[in-house]
C-alpha cells in the first residue's frame, strides 16, 4: 500500500478480524458501508490493531475481500445508476458456491443491497432448470426416495386421465417395493432419474416454461384503465397469449409417461408397449393445439382406457 505517514493523515482505517483470526486494515469509509461494521465502530471498536472488530464467523478472508470490493465501488457517491448496475452485473459472475458464501457473509454484515443482488443471481441460476440440472450445479444430494418423489400431492380430479395416471403411479410404486425387496442393500449411486416427477404438481412441467407472460397481465390492466374495455377477456385469448404453453396441454402426464419409459424399462415389461402407444398418440396431438384436440382427446381416451385397463386391472 502507501507510505504510512501520508496515508494515515488522509484516511482513517479500521481493523477487522476474520474467522481465521487474521487481522486486516481497511479504509474506514469503505468498511462503514456495512451496517454491522458501522455499529461496531460507533461502539468504539476497531480503532487499533489490539481491538479489532470481530467479524461474524460466516465472513472468511476471501469473502471479506469480495465484500470490500463491492463496498469500495458503491460507497463513492458520484456514480450513476447505470454504472452501478453495470458493476453489479459483472460482480455477480462467479461460481454458485461462492455466490452462496457471499450471500451468507453479506447477510451477517447486514449489507442488504449485496444480499439482494446475490440472491437474485442465485434465483436466476435456479430459474427454468430441471431438477437434475439444479442438483448438478449446487451439488445437492439426490436423496429423496423414489416413493417420496412419486407421492402425489395433487388431488385427483374427476378427470379420467388423472385417474389413469394415478393408477400408473400405484402400479409403479408396487413395482418399486418389489424391486427393493429383491435387491441387496447396495447403495445405488446413479438413480435413473429421467422422470421429471415434479410433473405431479399440475402447474409444473418438465420442460421448464419461462414466464414471459407476466407482462401481459399488467398491460391488460393498463388497457382497461385508459380505454375502458370490457371486463370479459375473449376465450381465444387463451391460446394466443400463452402460445408457447399450448403444447403443454396435458404434458404433465405425457412427460411422466415418457420418462418412465426410458428409465426402468426392464421392470415395466409388458406394460411398456401400451404406454408408448398412449404417449405417442398424446404427444402427437398435443403438438398442434386446436379446438379439435378436445374432441380427439375424448376419442383417444376411449381407446386407451379399454386397452390399458385390461393390463392394469389384471
Amino acid at each position, binding site marked *: 500500500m502507501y507510505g504510512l505517514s501520508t496515508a494515515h493523515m488522509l484516511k482513517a482505517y479500521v481493523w477487522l478480524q476474520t474467522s481465521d483470526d487474521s487481522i486486516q486494515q481497511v479504509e474506514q469509509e469503505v468498511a462503514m458501508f456495512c451496517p454491522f461494521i458501522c455499529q461496531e465502530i460507533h461502539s468504539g471498536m476497531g480503532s487499533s490493531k489490539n481491538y479489532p472488530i470481530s467479524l461474524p464467523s460466516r465472513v472468511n478472508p476471501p469473502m471479506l475481500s469480495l465484500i470490500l470490493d463491492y463496498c469500495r465501488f458503491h460507497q463513492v457517491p458520484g456514480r450513476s445508476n447505470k454504472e452501478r448496475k453495470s458493476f453489479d452485473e459483472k460482480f455477480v459472475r462467479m461460481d454458485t458456491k461462492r455466490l452462496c458464501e457471499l*450471500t451468507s457473509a453479506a447477510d451477517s454484515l447486514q449489507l442488504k443491497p449485496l444480499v439482494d443482488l446475490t440472491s437474485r443471481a442465485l434465483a436466476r441460476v435456479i430459474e427454468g432448470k430441471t431438477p437434475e440440472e439444479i442438483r448438478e450445479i449446487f451439488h445437492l*444430494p439426490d436423496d429423496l426416495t423414489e416413493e417420496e418423489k412419486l407421492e402425489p400431492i395433487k*388431488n385427483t380430479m374427476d378427470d379420467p386421465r388423472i385417474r389413469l395416471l394415478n393408477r400408473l403411479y400405484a402400479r409403479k410404486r408396487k413395482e418399486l417395493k418389489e424391486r427393493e425387496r429383491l435387491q441387496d442393500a447396495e447403495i445405488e449411486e446413479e438413480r435413473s432419474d429421467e422422470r421429471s*416427477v415434479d410433473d405431479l404438481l399440475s402447474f*409444473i412441467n418438465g420442460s421448464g*416454461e419461462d*414466464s414471459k*407472460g407476466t407482462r401481459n397481465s399488467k398491460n391488460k390492466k393498463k388497457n382497461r384503465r385508459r380505454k375502458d374495455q370490457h371486463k370479459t377477456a375473449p376465450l381465444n385469448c387463451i391460446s394466443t397469449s400463452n402460445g408457447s*404453453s399450448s403444447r403443454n396441454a396435458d404434458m404433465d402426464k405425457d412427460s411422466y409417461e415418457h420418462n418412465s419409459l426410458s428409465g426402468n424399462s426392464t421392470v415395466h415389461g409388458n406394460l411398456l408397449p401400451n404406454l408408448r402407444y398412449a404417449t405417442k398418440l398424446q404427444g402427437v396431438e398435443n403438438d398442434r393445439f386446436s379446438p379439435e384436440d*378436445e374432441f380427439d382427446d375424448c376419442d383417444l381416451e376411449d381407446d386407451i382406457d379399454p386397452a390399458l385397463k385390461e393390463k392394469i386391472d389384471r
Partner: protein
Amino acid sequence: MSSNVKLELDKLSNLPGHLIDKILSHLSLRDAVRTSILSSKWRYKWVTLPYLIFDNQSVLVSNQDQTLVKNKLVSIVDHVLLLHTGPIHKFKLSHRDLQGVSDIDRWILFLSRCSVKEFILEIWKGHRYKLPSSIFSYQKLIHLELFNCLLKPPCTFIGFKVLKSLDLQHITMDQGDFEDMISSCPLLERLTLMNFEGFNRLNIRAQNLLFFDVGGAFEDVSFQDTFHLAVVSVGLYENPGGDQNLAFGSTCNLIKFFACLPRVQRLEVQNFFLKHLSAGVIPMKLLAPCVDLSFLSIRINFNNKEENLATLCLLRSSPNLKELEMLTRAEEQGTGRTSADPFENFQSFSFNQLQLVKIVGITGSKKELNFIKFMLSNSPVLERMTVKPASTDGGWELLKELLRFRRASMHAEIIHLDP
C-alpha cells in the same frame, strides 16, 4: 462422488431460512415449489415463502375447458395454502379463468389469520365479486388492489389502520362506504380509482395522501385536508354537458378544485375534466398560485372558450411550470363562435421556468396556432416544443405558420412529429 464430499460442496441448502426465502421469492411460485423435489432438505423449504403469487403462469394449461382450468387453479391454491406455514406478506390472485368463485371467500378467510400486508385480487371475468367481510379485518394491510369487485364493508369495519396504497378498478361501492373507508385509513398515501359504480361524488379526505389517480364518471371531486398531495391525475370519462347545474355567478369549479391542493407538483387533467373545471365564473388567476406545480398535462378542446380561459387561468397561476403537455379533444368542432380568443390578445406573461412543451393532436386551426404562438413568445427558457398533428391534412400550412412565430427563447427547438 461420495456423499460426504457432496455435503461440503452443497452450500446452498445450509443457508439460513430467511435467505432461502429471499432467493425463492425471486422465482415464480411454480419454480419455487419445484424445489421440493431437489433433495430431502429442500422438501419443505418453499413452504415458508412469504410471497404467494397465483397468476396465469401458475396454471399452464391452455385447455379450452374453463371448468377444468378453474378446478385446477382452485386445487393448486388449496394445496399451496394448506402446505404453507408462517406469515404471508403478499398474496396475489389474478388468473384470467378465475371467476368470482366461493373458494375465494374461503381463501380470504384463511388469509385473515396470516398477517397479510399486500393483497391483490383481480377477477378477469364475470360479475363483480362480492368480497367477504373477513377481508375488512386485515389489520396489517399496507397495499390493497382490487379489480372487478364489490365492496360492502360491515358496520364493524374500523378502517385499515396501516394502509398506504389503495388501488380500486372496476368496483362497486356505496357513496357513504367509500368516503368512510378513505377517511378511516389515516396513513393512506396512494389512491387509484378507475371505473367505479355506486358513487359519483369524490370527497377525498386523506391527510397523508401523496398520489391520486382517478378515471371514471363522477359529478364532482373535492379534497379535504390533503395538504401533501403532490401528484394528481383526473380523468372524467363522460361529457358533463353544457348545463352544469351551476347557478349563475357561482364559484368556478377550478377554484374549488385547487382549494386543497397547495403543494401539487404534477397534474394531469384528462378526458373531459377540463370542461368540468371550467364551469362557473373563471377568474384571471387563482388566489394562491401553485408554486410547486412543475408538470401539467391538459386534454383540451381549443374551440371551447371556457376551457381556454380555464387553461389560461391555470397557466398564469403556475409560475414555476417546467413542462407542459396539451392534448386536444376533437369534438364539438366549429361551434361557429368567433369570440375573442383569450390567447390571441394576452401578451404580458412570462413562463420563467418552462422548458418543455408538447402539443398533440392539433389540426392547425387558428385557435391552436394562437396558443402555440402565445407559448413561444412567453417562454424565455424554452428548450423544446414538440408538435404532433392529428393527421396529415393541412400539414404544410401548419409548418409555414410555425416557422413564422417569434420565439422568446434563443435555444428553442421546434420538433414536428409525424401524425
